């Protein structure tokens, strides 16, 4: 695979005000941003984007996890991805 960043893992956490829904190493994540989906791989540039409503797909080393988010934002910085949403839960 020639796609840069593919295959390597980065840290992702899904955080709601009440609790940390998920935290761990992931290979790939698809985030429902306000204007469409954003795919995130290892080595993504620093990013802050607002979220829309939809499904957050996370490819962990152990398989795919799905979450529902509505509103909030995602922050990517140095292979640390934080998804913050007032409504974030397991789908």
């Amino acid at each position, binding site marked *: 695979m020639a796609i840069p960043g593919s295959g390597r893992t980065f840290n992702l956490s899904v955080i709601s005000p009440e609790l940390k829904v998920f935290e761990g190493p992931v290979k790939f994540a698809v985030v429902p941003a306000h204007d469409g989906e954003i795919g995130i791989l290892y080595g993504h540039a*620093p*990013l*802050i984007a607002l979220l829309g409503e939809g499904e957050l797909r996370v490819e962990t080393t152990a398989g795919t996890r799905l979450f529902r988010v509505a509103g909030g934002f995602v922050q990517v910085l140095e292979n640390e991805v934080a998804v913050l949403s007032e409504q974030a839960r397991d789908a």
Partner: protein
Amino acid sequence: MQKARDIRRRIRSVQSTRQITHTMEMVAASKMRRAEERVRAARPYAGKLSEVISGLFAPDLAERYPILRQPEEIRRSALILLTSNRGLAGAFNVNLIRLARTRLEELRADGVDVEFHVVGRKGLSFFRFRREKMASERIDITDRPSMADAHSLIDPLIPCFERGELDAVDIVYAQFKSALSTPPALMRVLPVEPAGGNAARASNYIFSPSSEDILTFVLPLYVRNAVYRALVETAAAEQGARRTAMKNATDNADELIKTLTRRYNTARQSQITQELTEITGGAEALRG
């Protein structure tokens, strides 16, 4: 000298009270542990929020965003007081009420028009009795506050602040420092006072949409989260204060039982001695 039987009855009554306070202590301890867990679980979100906001914030934005406005003079402000719905938590509610009263007096002395919001049965009954005018009275927030509670508490106030109808919003809540230390505290929710930003790092970000749009979206989240934090901390602090109060009550009951038992033994002893004296006295008289 009290009769032995009367003392016996008192011991039994103290013992049953002790059983109640001891149970309440253990219930409060377990509730506190769960509430403490919620306080801890709220930290990552709060940390990230302030990190992002301080990265986005620049002083010149204050003029463009109503929610960031820093009023030079405070003429109208809102004060939210959080108290518990239940008592038997020692000085917990009294301390909160006292802080709220001092704050009210301070603000009024400065000529500020105060809109007073009270949460919790204990605060309500106090200020109702004092005939204090309250803008809202709420008893529906449980000992497991949710984000929805924070929404309903602060959401009506944010637009008022943006329109300039309010110049400040303060919350009186109980800080949860530890199980033993739950001091009342005052937190300024609005205007937002972001910590000094790290502008260099912020400029590297890709923003979608623009950083200004993100800031306008994230700021209300920040304000709401501050309220949520006050709610969960107060809930945990209430259980902590109750546990301490009930522990003291249990210890006092133990002490009381000890003294009463000693007095009971003395009374019983002297009763027996007296009875013996009477019997031997009677026997002596018959023989004589």
